[in-house]
């Protein structure tokens, strides 16, 4: 297990480093001058030259890369070009707010998705299984932005129960005010993912239930509840964990859309802002942070998978 962790951490470090090269390359190797992009098409040559000098854009690329990379290693993401503030705190403040959104969403997806999947698998062919199946296909098929608009119209505009946009910090609005702003974004985020996860849990649970070791467990005379909980479920959860990790990627994509629509001041909205305003330090830093979050989530899933799966955790013959 120690060697396994070491290996995974090494490859995580490699992936993150490779991402810094890629992000840097995408931003800098694309044609056009960065200073020109920042100052707009009517900028004078002198102004551009001055800005290039100030940003160090005349240095060789590897020097620029190293300056940026060593800064990140030291926790310095550079200075936001449009807000004239250090990019690091801006990014992490936004990340914190997105993390609230994402972690509530992922917990709901895992809990509700797996529970619904198990229910379907143990009630195959019944009315509730069929209704769930129908719902699952529907929610997988309809995209998030459609739900965003629909729930805003329904709950915010028509019923007026919940705010359509914005964010209230916990310290200011109290628990209720804070939660009110989260309900709509979170529910639109999780609908499709719950459908996805429960669909998959259903099929992996069914596979486990039809396996010979479950038949063997029944032949031992164990009660059905024990058979399902002890023999079927742990094996059925393995594929579900992998899919939840993959879904974190989808979730990050969803967060960009949902934060933009609900004007929620998180990392997704910040990235869109950075792209629109060509705020390169903010953009590059934001992308690195998103990558790191995704990679760490997958690492966590791999570790959980290994813990639950003895074929990975315990090697060798007896």
């Amino acid at each position, binding site marked *: 297990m120690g060697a396994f962790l070491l*290996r995974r951490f*090494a*490859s995580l470090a490699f992936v993150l480093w490779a991402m810094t090269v890629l992000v840097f390359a995408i931003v800098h190797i694309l044609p056009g001058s960065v200073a020109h992009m920042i100052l707009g098409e009517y900028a004078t040559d002198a102004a551009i030259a001055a800005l290039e000098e100030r940003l160090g854009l005349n240095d060789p690329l590897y020097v620029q890369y190293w300056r940026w990379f060593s800064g990140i290693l030291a926790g310095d993401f550079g200075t936001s070009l449009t807000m004239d503030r250090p990019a690091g705190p801006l990014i992490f403040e936004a990340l914190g707010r997105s993390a609230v959104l994402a972690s509530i969403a992922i917990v709901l997806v895992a809990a509700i998705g797996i529970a619904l999947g198990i229910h379907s698998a143990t009630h195959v062919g019944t009315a509730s299984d069929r209704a769930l199946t129908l719902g699952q296909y529907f929610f997988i098929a309809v995209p998030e932005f459609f739900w965003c608009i629909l729930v805003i119209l329904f709950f915010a505009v028509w019923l007026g129960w919940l705010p359509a946009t914005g964010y209230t910090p916990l310290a200011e609005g109290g628990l209720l005010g804070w939660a009110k702003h989260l309900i709509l974004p979170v529910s639109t985020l999780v609908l499709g993912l719950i459908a996805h996860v429960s669909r998959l849990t259903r099929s992996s649970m069914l596979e486990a239930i039809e*396996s*010979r*070791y479950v*038949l*063997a*467990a*029944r*032949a*031992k*005379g*164990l*009660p059905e509840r*024990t058979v399902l909980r*002890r*023999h079927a479920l*742990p*094996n059925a959860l393995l594929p579900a964990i992998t899919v939840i990790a993959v879904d974190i990627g989808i979730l990050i994509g969803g967060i960009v859309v949902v934060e933009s629509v609900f004007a929620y001041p998180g990392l997704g909205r910040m990235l869109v802002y950075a792209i629109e305003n060509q705020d390169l330090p903010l953009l590059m830093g934001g992308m690195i942070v998103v990558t790191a979050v995704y990679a760490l989530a997958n690492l966590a899933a791999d570790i959980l998978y290994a813990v*639950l*799966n*003895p*074929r990975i955790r*315990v090697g*060798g*013959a*007896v």
Partner: protein
Amino acid sequence: MAEALLDVAGLSVSYATRRGLVHALQDVSLAIPRGGAMGLVGESGSGKSSMVLALLGLLDKGARLEADRLDFAGEDLRQACARLRGSRIGTVFQDPAAALNPALRIGFQVAEPLVQHRRLPQPIALARAVELLAEMGIPRPAEVAQAYPHQLSGGMKQRAVIATALACEPELLLLDEPTTALDVTVEAQILDLLERLRRDRQVALLLVSHNLGIVDRLCDRLTVLYAGRVVEQGDAATMLRAPRHPYTRGLLAALPRADRGQLQRLAPIPGGLPDLTRPESGCNFAARCPFRAEGCDAPQALRDVAGRAVRCHRAEELGDTPWPRPGHTAAQRAPLGAMLLEAEGLARRFRLGGGFLQMFRSRAEVRAVDGVSLSLRRGEVLGLVGESGCGKTTLGRLLLRLIEADAGTIRFDGQPVSPRPDAAFRRRAQIVFQNPDSSLNPRQTVEQALLRPLVRFGLASGAAADREVDRLLERVRLSPAYRPRYPHQMSGGEKQRIGIARALASRPDFLVCDEAVSALDVSVQAAVLNLLADLRDELGVAFLFISHDIGVVAHIADRIAVMYRGVIVEEGPTQAVLAPPYHPYTQALLSAVPLVGQSGRATTRLRLVGDVSATGPASGCPFAHRCPVKIGAPCERQAPAMREVAVGHRIACHLPIEEMARAPHALMATE
């Protein structure tokens, strides 16, 4: 009979399917006394598994069960099954790798019934589980109890499963194909264990199997099931010696037997299972029966014939009439042709494990094939036998250059074959795989699968290709009506024939058959084996016939090569390899084969312990670590060279030839 432990009368099971009600079991009766052993034999679709599930009360929810009596020790199983299973009725399922939960430790799984039924506290149950594992002959039981299933070999897993079944000291053990997934050497160990358990514990057995040899070894009574009906029931030894129902006769005639040689073609049972949604009122075997006569369409009752129950109105009249055999004899074979394939020093290693950072670490290696040389003439069949993990499949693929060799050369028809062979070699050397389910593309019709090689090798096109497809189907005895069918629309035997037809499409000179008949029922297997023999005789195709079933290899092969851990340890003409002098490994393999009607053989058996995957010494004889007649230091230090013990018969062993020649005949009973 004394009061029966298990008493089943008039048991019928049916399943509702889209095609209608499938009558899986129809009016089945059987009884097992305490300590008795009943064999339940039949091919796939006969209803064997439904029987086991019905006794356990574990039939699918959609299944309908009716019975006049379904009693276990005086209790009605329909009410009591949930309480009895696992405590007084133990079950061992077919594949131990599938029957053990991969996520739980062995000891926990063995202890589960004790906690459930005996209400033992977990630590005491676990301690008892370790004792049980030890009783099953598992070395280091405490360590094994802590292990997960994937860490154990197949034989150890099956012992653990048997330990679980025996945990609560049941009076009845249901064995559903308990050795089918195991090597013949491991099977012999498990059969020994079951025999001992039956003797020591007086546990009654219901052995469900397609293998008549193991039924003969373990059981005193036998029930033959055909398409849901009992066709013959009585004393096992008598029935196997002198079968009375035509189906039992057919099963025995279709069985290739290592102790019989290859005098004739086997006798396949034509046709397939009847439609179970519409059971015939008359004899359900009549459509496939060569003894069909007037009166077969009338309902048949189980009648007492020669001391047993037979469901056939002609049972007495037929007497000892054997099942008719096809007319071919071995004498019609042409002499072998010129040298076709010569392989020299083929070797292939596999590395264990993988991954990015492991590139920098030394990894364990398995020498799957370790310097193998062999040759084949046109029209010759070379049988390749050995336990799983011996490198048989790897060798077959190396010979076809399907995987890259680390060393060695291949000459085909006098020309060297490069590591990346041209289309001409691919056309002339083909392969038939074990499992037609996974080797046929489920999205291709028969026609597409057969046209593809014709087009690929430019052999025929248009109307000519069309005719060629019909000709190929005819070769494998299928009608052109099969052309538009997809794999899922065919039976296992039909699919395997399509696999063979596909391999034949390019008119190859050399075919590798990798366990090509292993997945098939005996009656279908006989038909496919006859087909392969016809191809050999009519087209002069040479075969490398890989199989773990020595009976099948003995039937079809001209020569046999015995492989152990990547090395050929014995090679020679079939009759020479099957008789002494033996390599000790060959002797052990042969004496492990369960044969019908040879229970006297048990005393002279040479038993192997452990299995192939156990690591042996890097130098020395590859078999030394398991060899029961090892002579000591030379075996550990030096790999034995191949020595010619007779013309064309070579053995790699340090033992003196005279001593190997003194070994008892492994396939015959000795007094």
